[in-house]
Each structure stands twice: as structure tokens, then as C-alpha cells.
């Protein structure tokens, strides 16, 4: 049993690490902008397409293999710097203070446009570029062989979680973000440029999602429909953790990974259902998610 569970667990955690990056971006954007971005999953697939294109170009140009690692992060950063501010300034900004229905619809419209744009630019073929996985190779622990890349993914997600907490708690811009989350109006009164904070937080969310997408390319490639599939998983993870809670997203990602491992082991056909069942159960007991708190009702 041990020999089967542990590889499953590593695989599950490696996938959870990528979903965590999307979910934490979603939850960060929600806490700062108070907008649930239905198009967030598209940034994951855009990041993946960008990384695949850049990676294939690096390999094709005969550049040293280690540059593919750089290309993964670089493509995510490029997506964040180009796509993030443009979309926040034009579309998302317009929905601030509007009802959830309008926000969901506007971002759904954006999702449809982004999905088609990707199909037009990148076509319907799948892309694979697995140089990073090959370079890292595999290691053997207790008689079982693991892909080093998957272990790196798990460590990287953990490091990003810690880094994000430190960033928000200990840097100037992070503290500004925390202030805007705590009270938008008071922050404005204190002279914080909230529009700038919104743009930075949104772009950071885009970066995290795009990085998740970029990191998935070496092990699973990218194909059409990736953004839509990732979106719902990220929703589930963010909702389980409590919308707007970074710790929540991390804990929820681990719980979802464990739930999937258990279902794959005992009832493989229910694998895809596990995240949603966990979400339904958690919200039944805690209506605002694990780390969420009830909002006061106004008369």
C-alpha cells in the first residue's frame, strides 16, 4: 500500500501546487478588488502557451537547456506585465462596486474572448516542452522513483506561499495591499493610491496564475480547454479555503490533493468529482469556507 500511496501523493501534491498558484491569485484579487474573476483560469492557459512557445524557441535556437527554466518564469512575468494592467484598467476597473452578477458576467465575457484569442493565436494543437523535467531527472527514495520536477513544484509552491505572506506583511507595497483589504475608504483617506494598489494586486494575481500555467507545461503540456478546467478547480480550492484567504487556499489545495489521492486509490472513477464533493461538504459545515468569516448583514 505504501508503495502505491506515496507516488500518488507526490503526484497529487504536485498538481495541487499548480492549482494553489491559480487559487491563491484568484483569492488575492478577490480580497483586494472584491471581484470574482471568472476569466482567471485563462491566465493559467495563457501562461502555459507563452511558456511552451518560449521554451520551444529556446530549444529550437540551440540555446543551453537551463535557459528553459528561465523561460518558464520569464513568460509568466511577461504575461503579468502585459495582460494584467491592460485588463484591470479597461474592464475590471469598471465593475468595482457593481453587483456580483455583473462582475461574474463581465469576467465571463472576458473569459469567452480570451479563450477564442488563444485558439486563434495558438490553434487547437497541444504543445509539449519537457526539457526542465529531463534536466532534473528522477530520484529514488525507498525503492520508488520520483520525478525531481514534481518535488521541485511542491517546494516551490510552499516557498511562494511563505514569500507571499512575507511580502504582504513586511514590504511597503504589501502593507498597502493589506490596508486596502482591511478598509478601502480609510486607506484612500490616508492617501493610498488605491487604483495603483488594485492594478498591482491584479497583476500579481495574473502572474501567479500564469506561473502555474507555465510550470504545468514541462510535465503535462498545454491543450485547448485547459483554462476552463483549471478555473473550476481553482474556484473549488478558493471556496474551500474561504474566499480572500491566502492560508485558506494553501490548506484547501492540500486537502483537495489528499481527497483526490484517496479517491484514486479507492474509487478511481470518482477522481474528478472529489474536489467538488469536498467543497460541498466544507461549505455545508462552514458556509464561508475554512478560513472565511461571516459578513454582517446590513438592514
Amino acid at each position, binding site marked *: 500500500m505504501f508503495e502505491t500511496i506515496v507516488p500518488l501523493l507526490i503526484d497529487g501534491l504536485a498538481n495541487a501546487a499548480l492549482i494553489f498558484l491559480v487559487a491563491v491569485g484568484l483569492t488575492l484579487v478577490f480580497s483586494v478588488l472584491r471581484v470574482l474573476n471568472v476569466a482567471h483560469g485563462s491566465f493559467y492557459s495563457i501562461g502555459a502557451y507563452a511558456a511552451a512557445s518560449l521554451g520551444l524557441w529556446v530549444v529550437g535556437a540551440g540555446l543551453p537547456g537551463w535557459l528553459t527554466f528561465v523561460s518558464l518564469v520569464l513568460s509568466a512575468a511577461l504575461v503579468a506585465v502585459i495582460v494584467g494592467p491592460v485588463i484591470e484598467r479597461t474592464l475590471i476597473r469598471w465593475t468595482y462596486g457593481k*453587483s*456580483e452578477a455583473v462582475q461574474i*458576467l*463581465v469576467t465571463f465575457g472576458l473569459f*469567452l474572448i480570451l479563450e*477564442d484569442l488563444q485558439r486563434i493565436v495558438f490553434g487547437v494543437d497541444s504543445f509539449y516542452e519537457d526539457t526542465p523535467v529531463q534536466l532534473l531527472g528522477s530520484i529514488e527514495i525507498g525503492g520508488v522513483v520520483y520525478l525531481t520536477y514534481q518535488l521541485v513544484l511542491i517546494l516551490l509552491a510552499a516557498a511562494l506561499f511563505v514569500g507571499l505572506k512575507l511580502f504582504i506583511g513586511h514590504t511597503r507595497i504589501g502593507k498597502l495591499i493589506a490596508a486596502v483589504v482591511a478598509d478601502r475608504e480609510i486607506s484612500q483617506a490616508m492617501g493610498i493610491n488605491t487604483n495603483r494598489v488594485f492594478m498591482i494586486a491584479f497583476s500579481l494575481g495574473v502572474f501567479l496564475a500564469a506561473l502555474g500555467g507555465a510550470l504545468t507545461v514541462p510535465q503535462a503540456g498545454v491543450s485547448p480547454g485547459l483554462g476552463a478546467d483549471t478555473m473550476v478547480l481553482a*474556484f473549488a480550492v478558493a*471556496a474551500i479555503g474561504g474566499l480572500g484567504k491566502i492560508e485558506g487556499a494553501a490548506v484547501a489545495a492540500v486537502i483537495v490533493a489528499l481527497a483526490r489521492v484517496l479517491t484514486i486509490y479507492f474509487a478511481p472513477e470518482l477522481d474528478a468529482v472529489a474536489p467538488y464533493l469536498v467543497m*460541498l461538504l466544507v461549505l455545508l459545515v462552514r458556509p464561508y469556507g475554512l478560513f472565511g468569516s461571516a459578513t454582517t448583514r446590513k*438592514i
Partner: protein
Amino acid sequence: MPLLPLAGGAIIALVAATFAFPWLEFVLTLAIAKGLAALGVAILLRGGLISIGHAMFFAIGAYATAFAMRDFGITDVFALILISAVISLAAGLLIGVYVVRYRAIFFAMLNLAISMVLFSLLSKFYGVTGGTDGLRVGTPTVLGMVLEAKAVATFLFYASIAAMVLAGFAVNAYFKSPLGEALSAVHTNEIRLEYLGIPVRGVLLIAYGLSALLAGIGGTFAAMTIGHVLPDMAYWTDSGHLVLVAVLGGISGIGGPFVGAVFLELVHTLAAGVTDAWNMIVGTALLGVIFFMPKGLIGFIRPAKKGDAA
């Protein structure tokens, strides 16, 4: 009382269109089927609730039809519609008991999660549901008569118009009843309703059941018209499309969702020959309507009057 001329105008326009272009029959039947589901979504929007999972009831209605045909040998069109209606209503009330406890984003996401559970189950259990291949739906019989496929298609077209008109008048009556007024009041201020002693969850549960019923009837029409059901019918982007159809047409009245559905299906059919960037067109149209035409497309057809519910 603008509903009667609206219904009359819709019937004449739809029938005239199929006499001029017979190939439109299939497109319009499907549009009305989706319009029924979008009307269900519009009911919830009236209560301030947005569901991005309502395609699940569309799928439940469609699969109920497929199962009734395959496993129980029921082929009569009216029996199939009735069975699908009862099953989708039951499913709506069952799921409704859980989801009406939530509001806003959580309501939206729970509907999404449940619809994804249904989608995954439909895709995985190959033996029962046919997996991702879906199930074939045969040609139904009409009151014991075995007709050829073309005649059944025409019959389904007129039946869907009848269902649309019936649903339109029924939902209109519901909106004007105390129950329907209470639903709008949930949107305005839920706590005031509680102070008045009106059970908010009960009001929402009835609305949810009704919306599931409409989506299910839409689903059974789609299943019989297309002759095939697929798990993709329950996928979350289809649910998003239903909300889109409702908002595009306008959610202030009964006609909006159907106008939205017919408009989208027509554009889809016409654009198919020119470009495949279909989602981009729809997404842009949605943004345009939200930004510039808060009353939806129906605002063009029916000028806004005093006292129109916003």
C-alpha cells in the same frame, strides 16, 4: 398588458421565418429550448441570485429523456416531456434545499460545483451514461403515431413554441403573484422580508424549483431535437452561456431570454460560415450589452415604459 401582443408577434415571426427558410426550424427549436432554460436563470436573477450551474438541469432534463427512452421504452413525446419535467423539478427542489441557504458568490459557486459533479459523473460512468460519447435519443412518437423524423421535427418546433408561450404566461403570472413579488423583494432587502414574517428560503426554493423545471423542459426539447445527449450539456461554460443569453436578451420581462436565445442561435448559424471566432463575438456582445444597454436587446423591441421592473 403587453404580453399578449408580444406572444402573438413571437409566434407569427417564428412561424413565418420557418416558412421562408425551412432549415431554420431546427435552429429555432433549439433556440427556444435554450430560451426556456435562460428564462429559468432570469427568474433567479430577479431574486438577485446568479447561478453558474444551471446547465445541470438542462442536462438532467435531456438525460431523463434519453434514459426514459432507452431503459423504459417510453417514446411518446408528451410522456417524455412530462417525465423530464417531473425529474428536473424534483432535482431542483432537492438541490435547492441546499443552495438557497447561500447568497451571492457562494450561491453561484455552489451551483457551479454541483453541476461539475454531475458533469464528471456523466462523463465517467460509461456503462450507464455512455460516458463522453453521450447517448442517442431516438425519434419520439406522437400520441401513439409513428411519424417520420421530418414530421416529428416540425411537431417539436410547434410544441416548443407552445411550451414557450405557456411558460411565458405562467412565469408572468408567477411574477405578479405575492410569491413573485416576494422574490423581487429578496433582491431589494432580505431582512425586511424576514421582519414581515415571510420565509425567505421558502420563497427562493420555489423560485429555484421553477427555474430547474424550465431548464429541464428546455433540455428535453434539445435532446429530442438534436437526437443526442452529451455530458458537455452540464459543463460550466454552458451554464455561463445561459446567464449570458438571459442578460443579453434582457431580464426585465418574459420575452428577453427568448429574444436573447433566438438572436444568439441565428448569429451563431450565420457566423459559422464566415468565422469560427464565435465565442469572441458573443463575449464582445455581452460586454456591449452590459456596458451600454442595461435593458438588454429586448429594450429595442419593446420601448421602456413607466413601472417596468428594472
